């Protein structure tokens, strides 16, 4: 997407603010995987991986990888104190039963109602939904991290998604390179801006209307 490291980290840092002590959190690939780097030391979180790890820790240093201790993307991770392993049915039981507090994932499009379209890339073969539908539908809070626009400059936030949906009406918050939006029954609401972007600039790059919070926070 051509998003610089600094911007990616700014988004990840903002997402990390949503994570509270004691939560169970599932992270998608891409920018979401940067979120743990921005958590304060005192915040204890159990990161959930759908291949059967609760309490996933950071990647081990080179040479210390364990081929049988990997995240859902197949890359080596570690286990924190208090971690546990389980089979795939149990891992998804945690999701469907509502024990996963939050999922932070990337997306291709999000609608003003919180419809999520993140599993079929236009013009590409359908790769399958993996665990995305269950996470989107059943995690208590769904946070999307993505660019405000696609590579052609079109808004990825829109009235109706044009791509096939992963799950309807499931996204609670969108954090882009420009702004932070909340989605509730009242619709899409602009909550925060990343400096130096302005409300008008965000409006010009958003494919639907939105309301604006009374005290907009500007993140430097």
């Amino acid at each position, binding site marked *: 997407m051509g998003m610089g490291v600094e911007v990616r980290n700014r988004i990840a840092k903002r997402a990390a603010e949503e994570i509270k002590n004691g939560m169970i959190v599932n992270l998608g690939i891409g920018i979401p995987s940067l979120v743990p780097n921005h958590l304060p030391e005192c915040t204890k979180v159990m990161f959930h991986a*759908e291949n059967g790890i609760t309490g996933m820790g950071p990647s081990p240093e080179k040479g210390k990888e*364990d081929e049988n201790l990997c995240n859902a993307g197949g*890359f080596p991770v570690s286990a924190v104190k208090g971690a546990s392993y389980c089979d795939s049915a149990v891992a998804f*039981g945690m999701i469907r039963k509502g024990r996963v507090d939050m999922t932070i994932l990337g997306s291709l499009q999000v609608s003003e109602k919180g419809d999520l379209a993140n599993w079929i890339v236009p013009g590409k073969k359908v790769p*399958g939904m993996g*665990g995305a539908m269950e996470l989107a539908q059943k995690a208590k809070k769904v946070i999307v991290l993505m660019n405000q626009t696609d590579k052609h400059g079109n808004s990825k936030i829109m009235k109706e998604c044009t791509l096939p949906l992963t799950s309807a009406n499931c996204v609670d918050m969108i954090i882009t390179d420009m702004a932070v939006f909340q989605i509730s029954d009242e619709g899409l609401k602009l909550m925060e801006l990343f400096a130096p972007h302005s409300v008008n600039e965000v409006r010009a790059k958003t494919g639907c209307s939105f309301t604006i919070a009374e005290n907009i926070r500007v993140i430097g």
Partner: protein
Amino acid sequence: MENIFHKIINIEAAMEHFYDGMTIMFGGFGGIGTPPTIIDGILEKGIKDLTLIGNDSGFPHIGIGKVVSRGKAKKMIASHIGSNPIAGQLMTDGKMKVEFSPQGILAERIRAGGAGIPAILSDIGMDNDIVTGDKQRCILNGKEYLVETALTAEISIVFAKKADPYGNLIYDKSARNTNPLVAMAGDMTIAEVEEIVPLGSLEPDEIITPGVFIDYIVPSKGVNWKWAWE
């Protein structure tokens, strides 16, 4: 090792149970926890027209991906094939059918198969044609659900860390993944194991898959592929 249950066999004897056109269910997630020696046995035997059931299609050179990439499967039931571009190409060219199931529902369908339950009810992906297809729907307590049928296979193949001669299994960390579920769902289940230990040396409390579900145990020659991260 004492073989009083006659379950411990070599890979050659295990391969006698494999044939063209059969349904094979495999354990593993992105190749992690997929039995490498049995995969190579399948390739050497050259069986084809297989129906493969498992979490994903691995990578082209990893796990079940080795079988898929050589065009040996006519059908897959999986949650995604994104990590194996050759699987995607075979699907697009009409050479392999793929039935996609949401990952956790696929796990439950396999679990149901292994637990002798004909189907489960699910509310996942009900607004998505790829999930719903022509599946039966049913109303329970005023809410609509999809009927997701159970999955079984002629042979299940799993990969475990240790087995005793009865086939009691323990797994290694995240290589457990779908293996305990797949182990239960085969009409016959063959476990490839890194180590066979004497009867009584596994604590009954630590056993994940009771040997009841395991028909044969094959010693592993170890993982012989290079992982994506290496």
